[in-house]
């Protein structure tokens, strides 16, 4: 039960950030302070990709001392808030 509520809340907040900013990284989702340590972020990621016209982009964050990658979910079309700027 706790897990379902946790997932629902994580999905709602992540969706709000995605719609506001036009993107959200998996690191952002993982960093949501109410999530338990073993929370399965991929459920939220897959749901966002399904629910919105969005794509998952993998990008290199750094190469020292070793290669590091990050993943970002990005709306294919910019949110209205950003279009007016």
């Amino acid at each position, binding site marked *: 039960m706790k897990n379902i509520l946790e997932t629902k809340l994580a999905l709602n907040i992540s969706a709000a950030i995605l719609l506001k900013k036009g993107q959200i990284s998996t690191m952002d989702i993982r*960093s949501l302070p109410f999530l338990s340590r073993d929370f399965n972020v991929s459920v939220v990621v897959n749901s966002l990709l399904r629910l919105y016209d969005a794509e998952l982009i993998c990008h290199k964050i750094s190469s020292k001392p070793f290669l590091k990658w990050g993943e970002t979910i990005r709306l294919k079309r910019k949110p209205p808030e950003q279009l007016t700027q």
Partner: protein
Amino acid sequence: MSTMRQKKKADKTKALRAKIKDIEKKLNEKLTELQKSRDNNACFPLLMGESSIVNAVVDDTFEELRLKYKSCDGKINVIVDSGGGDIDAAYNLANLFRKFGSKELHFIVPRWAKSAATLLVCSGDKIFMTPVAELGPLDPQITEFNPLEKRLESFSPLHVEATLELIRKEFADGNEKLANGLMERLQFPLTLGSFTKSLDISEQYLIKLLSSRMLKNDLEKAKQIAKQLTTGYADHGFSINVDEAKQLGLNVTELADDELDLIWNIHKLSREISGLEKKIREGQLSEIFEGLPPELLSQLPIALRKRIMPNKQSEGGGKQ
């Protein structure tokens, strides 16, 4: 946000970044030590954390190998920490490492090389695992929207066969109503067919990789292992530890003594970096939270709201 609070936050972030730099330095030293302990053969850290193996990872790894590992003399050790990813990208990455490790290719697994990362580590000559390292089955994971239940569901193609078997059994037992009910809830047959077919891709890749390197001249054994890894385990999360991997017939050695200490330290340092990066991000998130709709934020527990948006609370904002 007040200037005072902003400054405090910036200082905290700066301190965390400095700590990361310090740990990165230590990690570099450990990698050099590892290289020395392995006859000075090159060591490539593929510490993916929570990122998946995708095509972009292949591109970046290729560039890194061309840039820094050209003189590795065909011998390379790859430290893998990955939960998996795209099977085609993992196969491509495996072939890339085989080119740079044409004489000797060893994979070292401190903790995880699950799913597609298992395919990757099976592509070399030998796998080194700590006592807590895990490989995993290779049945692909499919996430599909279930229109009847109106929710996303993750499942393995193995579940398709198990469901069909269940329906067959209900029919055979004379429970036609139940069997028909189950049939109605099944997806389009072509989709089901494509799900089950995806198992073959993993199996074919694995046979190709195993039979051309680790199990050269033993095609039958390679086929047997590939079958077991794609369809032989009940759950995708099954933990294949060092003993299970040996029983399967893979060329695996358990790390011990100094080398185990070294590898485990590398793993711990890399996790420590991830933890600190998460902390930095957590701090930055509070600014984003402030712009979110209040009705959404009111769903958060009060204590948490106070923690992530202290100025909102002090201004009397937010629902109690």
